[in-house]
């Protein structure tokens, strides 16, 4: 693989996260427009991150788990008072 590909592949990660400065960003985008190999790498990395993000479902802590937490922290009484309004 050419040195330029290797360098761009390293920068693609920063590009995806918006962590690349303007000038490097322009260079990488220009390379991507002219290099099908790096473009595929960029698209598949981007899709990978997208899929992982989409697949992530944050969970709400159950009431039971919250009660256990407050008990362990010795905050049970104050917690019950807050809950009962």
């Amino acid at each position, binding site marked *: *693989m050419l040195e330029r*590909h*290797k360098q761009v*592949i*390293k920068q693609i*990660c*920063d590009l*995806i*996260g918006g*962590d690349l400065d303007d000038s490097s960003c322009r260079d990488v985008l220009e390379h991507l427009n002219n290099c099908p*190999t790096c473009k*595929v*790498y960029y*698209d*598949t*990395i*981007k*899709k*990978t*991150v997208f*899929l*992982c*993000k*989409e*697949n*992530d479902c*944050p*969970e*709400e*802590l159950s009431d039971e*788990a*919250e009660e*256990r*937490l*407050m008990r*362990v*922290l010795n*905050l049970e009484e*104050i*917690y019950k008072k*807050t809950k009962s309004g």
Partner: protein
Amino acid sequence: MDEKKLIEKAKEGNKAALAQLVQKYSDRIYNLALRILRNHEDAEDILQETFLTVIEKLHTFDGRSSFFTWIYRIATNASLMKLRKKKVVFQQLNDNPDFQDSVESRVFIDWSQDPSITIYDQEVKKKIDEAINKLPDIYRSVFILRDIEGLSIKETSDIMSITEENVKIRLRRARQFLRDYLSDYFEERIGQENA
């Protein structure tokens, strides 16, 4: 009451203020631990351990970092420690920027435009979970903080107590590992569809 006041009151021993802080962060800490540990029981253990540490060390919190960064650092360290204890063997780590990435050995096939690849496909979901489960711990924590939780490179570096450059290196390896793992499956799947 704003967070700064809550922290001051909690430092003075005000239990109501402490309970409010716990309630404010418990869902986020639980989910962070769940994402790193991939196990509900372990995530609940970490949740409790994190807040016990917060109570014990709150007097040392000086506000130089944000309370969020401070508590996330405690939770991330506790989660990683638990993973290490469970696995017994520590994973090899190489943050050397000159470390040879394996990317050059692969031929890239573009599966990104395939409309059948969505998380609504149970098999795809399973593969994504598998890939994240197989991701080495040190890369997984950075990937979760930066890409899943959406924190900045700076915040991730503060939480992990590593340089921003090392965050970028680990993030690149994490994304590449996940991409390669999913590519193996998607390329085979596309091949079968076209056969």
